[in-house]
């Protein structure tokens, strides 16, 4: 059995976004003949439409490959990982299931923010790191400079690291060879009680919840009684198997293996990612360390456009949560939007991905409110409440102080944009901490900044001010007191809760005016004049008016051509379906998110 372990390599690929992770994964799969060329499609591990379209990896996707070196056959288990900052959590999940990581660095761009962040994550997980320089086919590729950067910035020996082109299939063999030679074989006791880590899960309508596992000790086969240690539930195994990358049933999974377990698990919440599976009859004493629970940092209300679809939305969120443990949600009621959910996300991209998946995979029409962060509100009676929904902010008289989440922000930029980046950070209430030259052409600027400023168009502004050259990384480090107020928007004299926001008092006036102007454009003319007012604590700071509609269409109805009128009516009816009734005012669904987007003249 140790013979078998010796020939297994479990690894993942880490990289900054767009450095070619999925392309390398494709090449490895192709080179090892795991998938026939007929089945081969670009970015084979990115199975979601969304992933392929946006060219990003969101979910972990494991696959098993065979590779022969010096007459010995090896099983290589690859777990693909996401690269974006929002998905650091998912990366750490796959790292815990591996012994090694391929670190891809783009030969023309060198070490980037996420390269560093993910490398540290891998080092923290005691993984063997195997640097690979990719995209050497590009004219701007500078392999030697890249090698030096890996050694200088990351402190990883890179003298013999493979220089490859995943796109053109150059030097892929060298990567496979080094995986076998450099990444350690898994360790584990086949005779010890079962110890398997759930690193992901998926819901299948026929098989129930499927656990993606890495077996650390022992073995598991069909018919075994297994126990989820944290949730304390027992099941009988109905199927075990590996990923080819399609799921392929096997008789048994042994220590060192990466595979899946089905056990007719009906309840999604029983397969908690990070939990340890053991044998119910012969349990292990100590569960695996698992993962730390991640805390969402960005919050937003999600409501069905059609109020009757509340239950559908709930089911969809539950299904998504099953394999995205970082998604948090709880019921919320809004005067303007009815019943929905307040959802917590790891970041803005995460929020965008979730809303898009709700719309595409579940066919739901949803309304999203402007994202917010969670504030610690200290009341005069000594109590502290966490407020992530602006409309829940206690009255000003009851508030002693409000603290907002702060981030440590690193912006990586070419030196000629330092001025522009500093200006932006200052504008966003950032506090300068440090500036370092990583090398002649790259500077890192360190700031302390409120998270709330980060979620309000910071990324877009940064990209536009640096022509796309800057990248960033951030981490929430704590809370700091701040002079915050609630900005309310009143429509036709009624405060619209879904449009309220918590904002720094120095920025409230400008934002209030900006939002009122924006709403005037978005809200269509109605039967009545609609006054739009922005106010802080009852004081009106901006006012705009949507004048009343005077005419829609008085079409001539000729020769009994009713169908023409009907068409018009149907069109208007469909438009109305997408409207939200707020008092006597009808609001288009996009009203609630559009106030977040800034205009060019901002």
């Amino acid at each position, binding site marked *: 059995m140790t013979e078998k372990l010796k020939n297994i390599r479990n690894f993942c690929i880490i990289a900054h976004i767009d450095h070619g992770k999925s392309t390398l994964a494709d090449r490895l799969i192709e080179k090892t003949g795991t998938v026939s060329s007929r089945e081969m499609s670009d970015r084979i591990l990115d199975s979601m439409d969304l992933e392929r379209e946006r060219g990003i990896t969101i979910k972990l996707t494991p696959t098993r490959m065979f590779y022969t070196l010096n007459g010995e056959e090896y099983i290589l288990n690859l777990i693909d990982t996401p690269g974006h900052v929002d998905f650091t959590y998912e990366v750490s999940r796959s790292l815990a299931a591996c012994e090694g990581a391929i670190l891809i660095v783009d030969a023309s761009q060198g070490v980037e923010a996420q390269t560093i962040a993910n490398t540290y994550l891998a080092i923290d997980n005691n993984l063997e790191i195997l640097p690979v320089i990719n995209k050497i086919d590009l004219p701007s590729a500078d392999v030697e400079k890249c090698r030096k950067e890996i050694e200088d910035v990351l402190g990883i020996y890179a003298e013999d690291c493979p220089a490859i082109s995943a796109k053109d299939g150059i030097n892929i063999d060298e990567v496979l060879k080094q995986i076998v030679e450099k990444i350690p074989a898994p360790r584990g006791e086949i005779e010890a009680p079962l110890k398997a880590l759930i690193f992901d899960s998926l819901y299948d309508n026929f098989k129930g919840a499927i656990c993606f596992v890495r077996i650390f000790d022992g073995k598991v086969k069909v018919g075994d009684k297994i126990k989820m240690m944290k949730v304390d539930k027992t099941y009988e195994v109905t199927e075990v198997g590996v990923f080819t990358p399609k799921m392929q049933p096997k008789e048994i999974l042994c220590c060192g293996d990466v595979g899946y377990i089905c056990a007719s698990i009906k309840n999604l919440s029983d397969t908690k990612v990070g939990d340890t599976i053991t044998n119910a009859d012969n349990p292990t004493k100590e569960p695996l360390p698992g993962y730390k629970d991640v805390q969402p940092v960005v919050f937003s209300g999600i409501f069905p456009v059609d109020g009757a679809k509340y239950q559908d939305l709930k089911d969809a969120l539950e299904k998504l949560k099953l394999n995205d443990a970082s998604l948090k949600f709880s019921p919320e009621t809004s005067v303007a939007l009815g019943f929905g959910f307040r959802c917590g996300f790891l970041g803005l991209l995460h929020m965008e991905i979730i809303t898009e998946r709700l719309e595409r995979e579940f066919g739901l029409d949803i309304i999203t409110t402007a994202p917010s962060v969670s504030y610690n509100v200290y009341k005069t009676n000594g109590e502290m409440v966490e407020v992530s929904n602006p409309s829940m902010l206690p009255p000003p008289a009851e508030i002693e102080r409000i603290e907002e989440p702060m981030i440590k922000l690193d912006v990586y930029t070419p030196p000629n944009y330092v001025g522009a980046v500093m200006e932006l950070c200052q504008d966003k209430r950032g506090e300068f901490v440090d500036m370092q030259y990583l090398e002649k052409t790259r500077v890192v600027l360190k700031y302390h900044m409120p998270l709330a400023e980060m979620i309000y168009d910071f990324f877009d502004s940064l990209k536009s001010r640096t022509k796309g050259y800057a990248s960033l990384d951030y981490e929430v480090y704590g809370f700091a007191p701040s002079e915050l107020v609630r900005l309310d928007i009143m429509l036709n004299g009624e405060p619209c809760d879904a449009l309220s926001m918590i904002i720094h008092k120095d920025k409230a006036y400008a934002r209030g005016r900006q939002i009122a102007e924006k709403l005037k454009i978005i809200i269509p003319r109605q*039967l009545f004049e609609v006054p739009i007012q922005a106010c802080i604590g009852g004081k009106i700071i901006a006012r705009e008016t949507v004048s009343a*509609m005077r*005419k829609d269409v008085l079409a001539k109805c*000729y*020769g009994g051509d*009713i*169908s023409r009128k009907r068409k018009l009516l149907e069109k208007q009816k469909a438009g109305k379906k997408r409207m939200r009734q707020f008092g006597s005012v009808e609001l288009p669904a996009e009203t609630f998110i559009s106030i977040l987007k800034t205009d060019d003249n901002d």
Partner: protein
Amino acid sequence: MIETMIYVHIPFCDSKCLYCNFVSGIYSEEIKQQYFLKLNKEIEYNANKKYIVTSIYIGGGTPSSIDSKYVVELINNIFTCFTIKDDVEITIEANPCSLTREKLHDYKNCKINRLSIGVQSLDNNCLKKIGRKHTRQKALKAINLARQCGFNNINADVLIGIPNQTYHKLKSTIKTLLKKVSHISAYMLINEPNTPLTRMIANNEVKVVDEDKCVSFYDKIVKYLNKKHFTRYEVSNFAKNDMICKHNMGYWQCKNYLGFGVSSHSYFLGERYYNTSNILEYIHSEFNYEKHKLTNSEKIEEYLMLGLRTKYGVNIEKLRSLGFDILTAKKTELDMLASNDFIQILDGAIIVNNDKFGVLNQIILKLLPN
């Protein structure tokens, strides 16, 4: 016995106006012959003496532009194929250029008793802008001629929102007309896609009258006509001394009508169908009506959509008989609309107030069943 109205479409014109996108055009005499041959066949194909015709409307196109023998033949054919009610209203559309004393006599002889004349404006500059071939003098002469020939039920079409039109010009047109006609249809000019006028607007060759201005013209005209005893009985239609167009009114009351000719629509016994819009296809293919039976909810929707356009509004009892208890189902909306003077509920009917017709569609949308 079933009462019905009849619409006949004549797709021929001597020239095409710049704003027009109706099925009409300039065709050879040969095509006209073939067309009427087919048209009469269609009438015969639908012949049924159990149908009592309450009104006939010959529209177009410009029905007055064709030789009146075609019209006479057509009317006679309808009289042969259907039962005709004693007080039948028979309208023909005409333009000022093509109306002659001879044609008018022929019309009169075959029992046509109502004329609808496409005056559009009495301002020569406005007429030119929209590509009408007649002048103010010609229009007035045509109306006078019709009156001399014994027509006392005459409608004049007037357009609101012609490029360069001012309220003054519009009012002067109306002022002159209302002394000579019994009915005025005032339509707002719609810039239909693919018309020369719409292209000219896009190329900045002509300037449109903006929407708000159009509405204020319209509102003022409504008041003015009211003062002169022309009552608005439907969004665009005004009649003196209750000389309402029965045919027109029938459309808004969801009455039966049979449509004959290219692009004509029919609504008969709850079924809707229409002919092809291609004249050659009409001439050369078999009659093949694809009938769509209206569902109950479509009937409710159409009754609301059409009925609210008229001064009689919609009848609450009739809605209830269709299964829609509007007073209960739309209580909030009705209260809101009534308290803000958009509508009133009078004698079991919901009626849109005179000055709120501009937003009629919005009102309709609020009252449709969910």
